[in-house]
């Protein structure tokens, strides 16, 4: 046999081994209820939870409204607050009336229309309000502050339209682009897609590898001519496809069921998701190289992948408001790059410079994971 034909034959049998491994893995995915559960049922539950259950919107926030000087003008402004769907208002004459309520959490903030308000307004100066908020809950505090300003701005505009007033001096006016209603669903749902892919990529992958060790099939595989690289690749490809399938299901649900806008391109969506699966799968492999036990693998995956994707990715908590050290840590959380990009694809459109940076970062983290995993994966036991 010539050297050439033997290398050809080698390549053919390598291809056949790889195909056999992929086929085996696919059968197992389809037949194993737990992979279906993680890849399709869990995403549904998550999506429904973030679509319907969890809402970060503030409506009907209780505040105390202090009118220091009764006048038609201030009463009119107070009415503006009372009519707002964002606030439930208790009216008083002195801020001290609400101080205790604020401490006890009965009101989320105190809005004071000060004595100077009338004078300022009359002088054409931008009238100032005083807003006291509970800083221990920054999220709500921000909302109270922003919505209080917005309510005043609204009121001023209203008076202008009614012809009852004069155009105010220049004042900052807030407008929320892309998600004008600030519906939290619209940015939670794209974010939860990243969580779902973390589950499929890292949790499921590390679980199935650990299961092969527990059942002794890994040992039987390794004693055949298959190479370690083929074994790994044969594991990765099916879960890569499963991750993208699961993501597609989520996107379809997000757009057609929850009505989340989709302003970017499908190409960008898949480019970002596919890249994200690199570090996710790499991390799954790394975990399964570290432990051969399903219980431990799931613990490691939850702590090292799922929780960071949840907490340190900007999904629920603003990264900029985290302590500096924690902010550094977020740079190695792959979901941190995916989530803002996905939110952009859904709500804004394709912004390739941003995506490019995210993709580069995810590839970098992914290649580190893969390098580490490849180093610790040999065809050896113990």
């Amino acid at each position, binding site marked *: 046999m010539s050297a050439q034909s033997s290398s050809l034959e080698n390549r053919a049998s390598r291809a056949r081994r790889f195909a056999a491994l992929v086929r085996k893995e696919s059968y197992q995915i389809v037949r194993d209820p737990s992979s279906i559960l993680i890849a399709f049922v869990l995403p549904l539950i998550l999506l429904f939870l973030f679509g319907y259950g969890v809402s970060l919107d503030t409506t009907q926030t209780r505040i105390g409204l202090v009118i220091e000087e009764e006048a038609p003008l201030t009463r009119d402004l107070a009415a503006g607050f009372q009519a707002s769907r964002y606030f439930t208002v208790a009216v008083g004459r002195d801020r001290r009336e609400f101080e205790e309520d604020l401490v006890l959490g009965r009101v989320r903030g105190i809005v004071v229309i000060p004595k100077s308000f009338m004078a300022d307004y009359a002088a054409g100066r931008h009238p100032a309000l005083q807003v006291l908020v509970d800083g221990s809950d920054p999220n709500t505090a921000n909302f109270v502050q922003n919505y209080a300003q917005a309510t005043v701005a609204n009121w001023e505009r209203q008076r202008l339209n009614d012809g009852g007033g004069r155009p105010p001096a220049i004042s900052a006016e807030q407008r929320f682009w892309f998600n004008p209603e600030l519906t939290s669903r619209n940015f939670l749902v794209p974010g939860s897609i990243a969580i779902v892919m973390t589950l499929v990529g890292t949790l499921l992958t590390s679980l199935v590898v650990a299961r092969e060790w527990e059942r*002794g099939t890994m040992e039987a595989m390794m004693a055949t001519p298959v190479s370690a690289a083929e074994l790994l690749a044969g594991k990765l490809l099916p879960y890569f496809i499963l991750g993208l399938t699961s993501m597609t299901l989520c996107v379809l649900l997000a757009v057609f069921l929850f009505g989340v806008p989709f302003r970017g391109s499908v190409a960008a969506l898949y480019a970002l998701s596919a890249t994200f699966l690199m570090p996710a799968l790499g991390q799954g492999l790394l975990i399964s190289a570290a432990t051969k036990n399903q219980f431990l693998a799931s613990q490691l995956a939850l702590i090292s992948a799922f929780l960071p994707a949840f907490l340190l990715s900007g999904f629920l908590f603003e990264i900029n408001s985290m302590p500096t050290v924690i902010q550094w840590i977020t740079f190695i959380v792959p979901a941190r790059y995916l989530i803002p990009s996905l939110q952009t694809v859904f709500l804004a459109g394709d912004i390739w410079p941003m995506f490019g940076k995210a993709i580069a970062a995810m590839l970098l983290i992914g290649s580190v994971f893969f390098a580490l995993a490849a180093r610790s994966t040999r065809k*050896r036991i113990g």
Partner: protein
Amino acid sequence: MSDNAPFVRIADVVKRFGDAPPALDHISGEILGGRITGLVGPDGAGKTTLIRLMTGLMVPGEGKVEVLGFDTVTSAADIQAAIGYMPQRFGLYEDLSVQENLNLYADLRGLPLGERTATFDELLEFTDLKRFTTRLAGKLSGGMKQKLGLACALLRKPRLLLLDEPGVGVDPISRRDLWKMVENLTKEGIGVVWSTAYLDEAEACDSVLLLNEGKLLFTGSPIELTERVADRVFKVSGITQGRRQALARYLDDENVVDGVIQGEAIRLVMKPQTMPGGPDDGSVTPKMATTTPRFEDAFIDMLGGGPGGRSKLAETQTPFAVENAKPVIEAHGLTKRFGDFTAADTITFDIPRGQIFGLLGPNGAGKSTTFKMLCGLLKPTAGEGRVAGFDLRRDAAEARNRLGYMAQKFSLYGDLSVAQNLSFFAGVYGLSGTRKRDRIQLMTEIFGFARLLDMSAKDLPLGLKQRLALACAVLHEPEALFLDEPTSGVDPITRREFWTHINGLVEKGVTVLVTTHFMDEAEYCDRISLIYRGRSIALGSPDELKAQVASDKLPDPTMEDAFIALVEGSEAKEAA
């Protein structure tokens, strides 16, 4: 490599894991083609480690392993292309069908497409799995899984076949079938390594490597080993009463190396140039004859003999009055169904006080199900069970207080120390105050736990774990003792010691229910029930069951012969 060069050369191999004593301690040996080489020893002897070294999946710490002329460290890939390996639990994918498993391994081993149909046909024929190609491997019986595992290892005819404990948990019929298949392979020149903890399997090998705690005790043909005790093995029969007492007396004789109960008789291994005396039990004239030595006789002789016949545990046991004729353990039509699967089907038996009753059968036959119903761990679908007169449905707590339970495998708290385990189980069984302290103190003395009290139970060697499990089960001096596969995998010396305690306790009126798949262990029982596919297919004393199947062709059947014949008989009846 010349034709008669050994297939495997093991040269002074040492393998350590962490700080533990070496798993393999300076092992050397050879494995030849065309024969079955047994890798024999109790659990923890180093069998699996040695096989993994041969596959190249593990590298030796010191020394060298050469397989088919290749070094396992530098040429693992060449070895893996030429061997067939069946790990423990057979290495099958349970979610894949029989055919899909075969296809997978055919692809991985690079079986050319053109040869597939013929090879699959031949292997399916050979393993009798043709009818089951579409069945998922997870739904096969233990015996069928084992055959499929073998078929997968044989796909591309290997030169060397490595089988890691292929006989574990499989019914004796499948075990015998597998052995025949493997024997046929050796005729084609294939070298076979068969690792096992069963000494009867060892005896059938062409040659063996006998391992114990990582050390090589013997290498050569089993006959060579058994010859060492030739003319020293005796069968004492005709003992009219108290064979357990007689055995205890024999074991205390310094000339007796080993002794076990074998049905109505006692089997003894004597020191060279000595003869057993009479049993001193007033029985007329016991018959005494030399008998064919077995592998186990020689193994124990090599380990320096078994323990004496005294059981301190039994000596301190308060006797239960035997005259009470009421059975202590009763099973009446016990049935357990899981969905449409009947795990145990109308199982009925009584155990009188002071007897050992055995449930014998392969894994999955329904032994453990029956067992669990009788200790109140599983609610029967139909029928009733009683322990010490208490109905397990109505007075489960009362009944449970009167029984001691030693579960299959290690069931103690591994992270608790020896002392904590004893104290915990004493508490569970309602002991307190001085009695608790005294009993724990006593167990510590009897089983030699004094230096080990602070050790985590999980770090104990297997034999000591077994002792601790027994100690925990008898702390409260139970009337009935439930032992689920109590000696599976332990070394023969520990096994002897264990049975000395059990025999002693039984003499004091404790009643014992034991499950086992060791055929020879069944001979220690007063009566046994053969459980097969959920039903009791035969019940009687070991000698009665053996007599049932004795024929001209097989005048002196072993327990395994009896089992196989009775199962085949029951299947024939069912088919008719």
